[in-house]
């Protein structure tokens, strides 16, 4: 992402960094660099997916009931919103490739809008969880105050249900929280991109940073594509 436009000889594109020989070499280098960063992100979230797999295999019942208490509708809407933002991000890059400068700004703003919608919806979900005392910690209370009679029956026989459910909620908050943090970082980068596109920095000959932001954004979308079924749809079939 060494994109500082160093004036370096007339025939070079202004955005070619001094240590590269051709724009092609610079683009391939930054793409490879970005993909390597995404590999670190895969392993970063991978640790959490491993924890999820291990604990779900140890406490299937508790995970099922805890997942049941999540608002699947909001989760589904969020998934659609995020897929939409991936579309607008891809269209932003398409706009750059066809030299439609205004289009870049439009689609980037759309992506930021959809991303913010996702975070707002996520805020509502967290608020609900907070109100229902499902946030692990001193006042975590999944069993006693739970309106669902079914849960209290099972809890009578399995006192650890509450504790095992708190592990599910810990994982839920860590995974979705980390994902939301990545969304916030993505939106910040997108805002920078909007400003630079507005100034006309990017066109068909040079839109590298846009491509990199796109790769990052699509990756964050893929993480959510896996989070949604694993966290929300796990207990969908169980009786409400």
């Amino acid at each position, binding site marked *: 992402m060494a994109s500082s436009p160093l004036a370096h000889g007339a025939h070079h594109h202004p955005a070619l960094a001094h240590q590269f020989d051709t724009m092609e070499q610079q683009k391939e280098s930054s793409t490879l660099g970005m993909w390597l960063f995404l590999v670190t992100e895969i392993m970063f979230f991978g640790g959490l997916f491993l924890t999820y797999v291990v604990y779900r295999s140890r406490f299937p019942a508790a995970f099922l009931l805890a997942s049941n208490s999540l608002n699947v509708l909001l989760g589904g809407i969020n998934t659609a919103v995020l897929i939409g933002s991936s579309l607008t991000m891809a269209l932003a890059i398409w706009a750059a490739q066809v030299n439609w400068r205004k289009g870049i700004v439009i689609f980037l703003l759309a992506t930021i809008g959809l991303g913010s919608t996702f975070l707002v919806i996520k805020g509502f979900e967290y608020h609900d969880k907070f109100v229902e005392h499902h946030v692990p910690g001193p006042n975590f209370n999944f069993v006693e105050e739970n309106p669902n009679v079914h849960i209290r029956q099972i809890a009578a026989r399995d006192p650890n249900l509450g504790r095992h459910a708190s592990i599910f909620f*810990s994982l839920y*908050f*860590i995974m979705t929280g980390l994902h939301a943090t990545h969304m916030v970082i993505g939106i910040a980068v997108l805002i920078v991109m909007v400003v630079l596109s507005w100034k006309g920095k990017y066109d068909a000959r040079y839109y590298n940073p846009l491509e990199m932001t796109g790769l990052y954004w699509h990756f964050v979308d893929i993480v959510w594509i896996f989070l949604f079924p694993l966290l929300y749809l796990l207990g969908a079939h169980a009786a409400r």
Partner: protein
Amino acid sequence: MNTSAAATPEPTTAETAFERPNYLNAVYGVRSWLLTRDHKRIAILYLISVTIFFALGSLMAALVRLELLTPEGDLMGPDTYNRVFTMHGIIMVFFFLIPAIPAVLGNFLVPLMIGAKDLAMPKLNLASWYVYNIGAAFTLWAIFNGGVDTGWTFYTPFSTNYSNTYVVSTALGIFITGFSTIFTGLNFIVTIHRMRAPGLTWFRLPLFIWSTYATSLIVVLGTPVIAITLLLVGAERLLHLGVFDPKLGGDPVLFQHLFWFYSHPAVYIMILPAMGVISELVAAFARKRVFGYKFVAFASVGIAVLGFLVWGHHMFVAGESVYAATIFSVLSMLVAVPSAIKVFNWTATLYEGSISYETPMLYALGFIGLFTIGGLTGVMLATLGIDVHVHDTYFIVAHFHYIMVGGTIMAYLGGLHYWWPKISGKLYPNFLSRLSALLVFVGFNLTFAPQFVLGYLGMPRRYWSYPPEFQVLNVLSTAGASILGVGYMLPLFYFIWSMRYGRKSGDNPWGAVGLEWDTTSPPPTENFYTMPVVTQGPYEYNREEVHNRLTQEAPLG
């Protein structure tokens, strides 16, 4: 690696080397150093930071060894001792051994050895140094406020529920410094793939580049996992998001899986660059191609890949299932094969070579001997029957010190001595440097050989006080540590001394072959006056123009 373009503007005699602009005298002032994007200057910045932390870690080691002089802990209380050995572990592992060779020697040499003007992302490289220092600041803040007493392994539930020390700020420090390693690793992979000189195919690359490449693969694939693990520990301590808490049904062994998934490949992050340095030293001072170049190159990549499959051998007695222990044990035997290949190939390189005993070569030969012992004891530990007895004893402490101190630090010092003329354009005093190599070798063996015996006798690790019958061996070990300390002090002094008063070294004092030796010492900011074109494989000593050059310049040794 002869290069037709080696002709610099005027003949490189020692005197004129300094008048011509080089990366040291190109710009002056603190800003030119703190905001530099030149990989060579960033390497020097790293050299300073890493040396400071090596000194701090060594101080902690000295305190540990002094404490263990007597069976009853009478130098400091048990709490202080626990914090001192923990800080020794954390500083040495995360702030010295992992960054040392890649960030100092790697940063300086990778562009030079592949004929590039700089790394692919110079700004990211500078960011890597700043991120290292920010992480270091958190850890130093924790140390000065009392440090952490969980051991460098942070095992739960002790680190999450039972330790009331600065676990979160130390974990945050390591988390941030992890990113500096990722930035460097990422930079190296992209540079080695995309910015090699024309004609420099993969099998013409020096072996130091192969091993730095393999190390960067491990860094990129492994470091994020310890980042998430430390994040989980922080989340559990601060936000009660208890994932490893046994009272909630959490499993402490799962923490160990996540921790060792990174921490075993991390020991290969520490040893692989050292192996790369040794391949260079052995080739340069035997003036001969490394025996079985392709085998040594692929052995590096093999270690990087197999290194990820063996972490379970740290948990044979930790409650892991018996069958998983068997799987990890056989995989640990496999990962030892590439290391064996390397040792045999280095030894075979010496056959029919023209060997000189300069200081770097003394360090290299010391490395081969000590690494062999370290590797063989490692395979002993991979054998299930023995590990049950010696796990968590001083046998393990001796094993990994033979690899890290006998291996990585010997190679780091050998590499510094070998490329110091290239870095500073100066020579260090010959006798003192050979003395330091000897002191390090003797001091090291006297420190850690007794610990093998202590380990098999059953003295557990991390003990503040121990049964009296272990005292004699511990006193021997402390004596060795003092010799080792002196051995490490010497280079610090004569390197600084040589910057000011050392003889000028000329461009290629050892008469070595390599792209980095084809340019001036110290090299210009853009590394090469005219970009090199590579037509030969590495270490081609047996050629006409090399012979003439050697007779003409009459190099050292």
